[in-house]
């Protein structure tokens, strides 16, 4: 096995194989999948979910769960765009800073409830999910915003290229996504705080006895997810060019499923960014492919559910079990 693959976990390798097979199948079955226009659109669309996934991964590793982040992102969209319009539109840097800050604040609410009141994260975030979403619908009356700051409504295009099937573009969300993934990776792998998060998710009592500040770690994990959610929310506005209060409704479960598919353990202590990215890629590519094949979107949800079930049951443990069985049989045959 090449050196670079050996450093990659079994789940990730398995996902790579499945993704390669699906891509091959789609390239043969459609003539639209393997075009620059489609692949770039897939990337632009998935950028938002990838930013969500990076944030959620941090919370899962720390041993928590959060289902309020998509609702929080909707709140951020609304607040950020409203404030930006008040100050005359601003620019992308001000926008990202604002969205990140508001998102962090909303995440900190979750952290405070979970840490100081010793509540279970799933219960807290179900509550804040309803709270965020309810407040948003109440104050907006469900009305969308179409008047956006200029940089958002025109969109920031980083790269474009004309092809036979139209313009292929890469837009700002892709760059932001790359930066957020890199930052998340850096924190989780290269910074002591990341390791403390892993430790807390792995064995909270052990972490406490080592003197790790569990309160600070909660704020870091949920705050980081809030920050990612805020930024992802703004990037979704950039993609859709409108603020619709329920545009992200239901996104949390899609992202959660993809991250778990990528090997993050519910319960904490285990998960890789590469796995989360691959899990999300698998779901997005399938969705895109079924769309191109003209399959109904309802069937899509069903098929994604099936893929997740199959992939999870074929995950690293099962594979290890299978290879172990084969190895033993070979030994037995060799000895008899």
């Amino acid at each position, binding site marked *: 096995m090449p050196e670079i693959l050996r450093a990659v976990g079994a789940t990730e390798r398995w996902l790579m194989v499945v993704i390669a097979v699906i891509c091959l199948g789609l390239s043969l079955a459609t003539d639209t999948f393997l075009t620059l226009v489609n692949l770039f659109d897939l990337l632009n669309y998935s950028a938002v979910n990838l930013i969500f996934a990076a944030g959620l991964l941090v919370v899962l590793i720390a041993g928590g769960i959060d289902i309020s982040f998509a609702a929080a992102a909707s709140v951020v969209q609304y607040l950020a765009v409203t404030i930006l319009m008040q100050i005359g539109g601003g620019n992308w840097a001000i926008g990202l800073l604002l969205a990140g800050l508001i998102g962090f604040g909303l995440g900190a609410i979750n952290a405070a409830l979970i840490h100081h009141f010793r509540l279970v994260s799933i219960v807290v975030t179900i509550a804040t999910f309803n709270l965020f979403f309810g407040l948003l619908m109440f104050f907006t009356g469900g009305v969308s915003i179409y008047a956006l700051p200029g940089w958002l409504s025109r969109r920031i295009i980083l790269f474009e290229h004309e092809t036979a099937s139209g313009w292929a573009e890469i837009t700002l969300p892709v760059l932001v996504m790359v930066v957020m993934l890199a930052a998340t990776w850096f924190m989780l792998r290269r910074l002591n705080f990341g390791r403390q998060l892993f430790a807390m998710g792995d064995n909270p009592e052990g972490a406490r006895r080592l003197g790790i*500040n569990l309160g600070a770690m909660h704020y870091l994990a949920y705050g980081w997810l809030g920050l990612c959610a805020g930024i992802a929310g703004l990037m979704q506005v950039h993609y859709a060019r409108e603020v619709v209060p329920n545009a992200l409704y239901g996104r949390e479960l899609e992202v959660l499923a993809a991250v778990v598919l990528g090997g993050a353990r519910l319960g904490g202590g285990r998960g890789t960014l590469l796995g989360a990215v691959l899990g999300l890629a698998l779901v997005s590519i399938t969705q895109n492919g079924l769309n191109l094949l003209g399959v109904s979107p309802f069937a899509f949800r069903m098929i994604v559910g099936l893929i997740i079930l199959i992939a999870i049951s074929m995950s690293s443990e099962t594979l290890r079990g299978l290879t172990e069985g084969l190895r033993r049989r070979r030994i037995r045959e060799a000895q008899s």
Partner: protein
Amino acid sequence: MPEPDPQGASLLRLAHVSKRFGGVQALDDIAFDVRPGEVLCLAGENGCGKSTLIKVISGVHRPEPGAVMEWEGRDISGLTPAEARALGIQVIWQDLALFPEMSVAENIAFERNLGARPRLVNRKAMRAEAAAVLARLDVDLPLSMPVGRLSIANRQLVAIARALVAEARLVFMDEPTASLSQRETDALIAIVHRLSAQGIAVVFVSHRLKEVLEICTRVTVLRDGRLVGTYPTAGMTQARLTELMTGASFNYAPRPEARPAAPLLELRGLTRHGEYHDIDLTVAPGEIVGLTGRLGSGRTELALSLFGMTRPDAGTILWQGQPLRMRHNRDAIRMGIAYMSEDRLSLGLVQPQSIADNTVVTVLDRVLGRLGLISPARKSALVRDWLTQLRVKIGQPTDAVSTLSGGNQQRVVLAKWLATAPKLLILDSPTVGVDVGARAGIFAIVDELARQGLAILLISDEAPEVFFNADRILHMREGRLIEEFIPARSTLAELEEAVHA
């Protein structure tokens, strides 16, 4: 030996330390002192408060108001875990408190990742540091393997290494030898002496009294959360120490030779490649067969096959004369085989669940009432029955198992298996971490069970334990049975020599 000098000769001095957990008075007005560079033992029965005292000193638990805690004469009450580490207090926890998903190297050198300020992770330095400590301990572990995949003995070594990696002034070792082999124990004892020579104080907790008397200069005895006293070990005997701990004394003698009966379980040429080879063995109803040998000799692997957890590659298992094939441990439980595992802290109990639920989990069908629902009355009757027979010290049966002391958790596991009314009971190191009084209690029960006709396979690496409690002893080495001893016809010294040779 002179009494501790309150004018600052002590490294650590405690007075009037108490700790309550709900209705349990875990510590009651304890005075305790440690001198620089000494090796002190903390002894007492299960649940007497040893681990709780360590948690208070390391900042994990806060004592009740009124406690005096001094470090080199300086007041340190209200200490946090981080401050305790900063003073140089390191702990090898009884439950290890490791991170199972993380690599051996990262667990050992995790110290480097602590702190409230951002810092870069230096994997290379961590590996080097971990490798250096392991070399000092004279053990070889795969540095990048996740700790959760190590055997329990190797995990214990990782926990020891982690405590030695930092600049320590005082190291607490809460039953560090509980699952170590003789060789590893010797290496650890050498380390303890080396630490003490460097001026680092060690507080050692162990239920192996021989060990206690060998390595310590003073021993502090607790009973029921109260201080009995602190004594020099010079001139102290195991019997005297037992008496101080329990307030009672015990006698030991090998079991009288038994008459053979038709075997319940018979193994013929049982083999699983790489684990055990060509095992012939019988266990009859009413017989206690001891299986001893060093750690890694294949004892546990054999037990796992007898319990249907792994499948042998060759040979036959006869059960009451009939060939037995097990696909699953459910088959084993149905036949009447019970297995109390070696790694009971992680495999045997559902920690956050109640003591009562843990006890009845194996026999849920027997506590079902009408409509197939669990009958609370039957459940509490069964639980009370076993818990009193085994003298488990608990607050309420509804308390979580994780609040019990280590030794008492052990007894809950035993209760759980005895509740299945088995025909064959496999006990894998049943007294690891169990105090002298309770050991006697557990073996009295085992003896009683044998009298009632149970066949018992007793696995242990403590020679005296099998010698005084088994009818026959099989000695296993490198996956093979190499000899048989009948205690009534040989001596403990012979057995010890054979095992440690």
